[in-house]
């Protein structure tokens, strides 16, 4: 595997940070609930629940 340059490595690490999707999906779930958008809310909860099993096999 090619060695990444330091800035590219930092960007890659930042973009693949596991907490990023959690924060985005959490905001989506709460915002959808506040707007009474039940389908979107449950979809966001579904994605959150799936992601919460990260690392589990």
């Amino acid at each position: 595997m090619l060695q990444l340059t330091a800035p590219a490595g930092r960007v890659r690490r930042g973009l693949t940070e596991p907490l990023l999707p959690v924060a985005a999906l959490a905001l989506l779930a709460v915002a959808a609930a506040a707007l009474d958008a039940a389908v979107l809310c449950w979809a966001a909860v579904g994605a959150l629940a799936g992601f919460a099993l990260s690392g589990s096999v």
Partner: protein
Amino acid sequence: MLFSPGWRAPIRQGEVLAVFSLGLVLGGTLSAGVVWLASGLAAPVPTSARALLTVLVAAVAAAREAGLVRLPLLQNSRQIPQEVLMHRLRTGSLQFGFEMGTGVRTYVSASSPYVLALGLLLAHMSAPATLLAGVAFGVGRALSAALTYWARSPDRDMLIAARMTWVKNITALSVLTAVTLLLVVG
């Protein structure tokens, strides 16, 4: 596990990820379908009781993740045999993803999937809405694998292990907030 180099090198890892992700989504959709079929049984229960029960379970899940209560989770306490990946990598990845995507074939290491399943069961929404949540569950699991693939880091497992407490707590608290807003406040 899916993206280690070596014996599977002749097959592109991106292809393995795509097939595995498809399996995850199909598995999540199947489980959501079963939940939707069963959700009719909850229809006679008053809406307010179903809402309160969902919020109560979400609160217990959040308390469990925070370590405030000790509660064993019902789960299939075993791993999917790695032999499914040994011989035919594409179909094996699909099967592996499908079994993981159902959420009932292996360990469940977080409380939130239970809130999702019970919430969908009690919400008794339309079939497309319930199936969409199942698809999203599979996509959520696939996203984790995709990030691991894109990260290309030998330290990825350690990073995920270090973040999991945060991931599970933020998830449980946001799910509690969302269902409370949706079912009680809204």
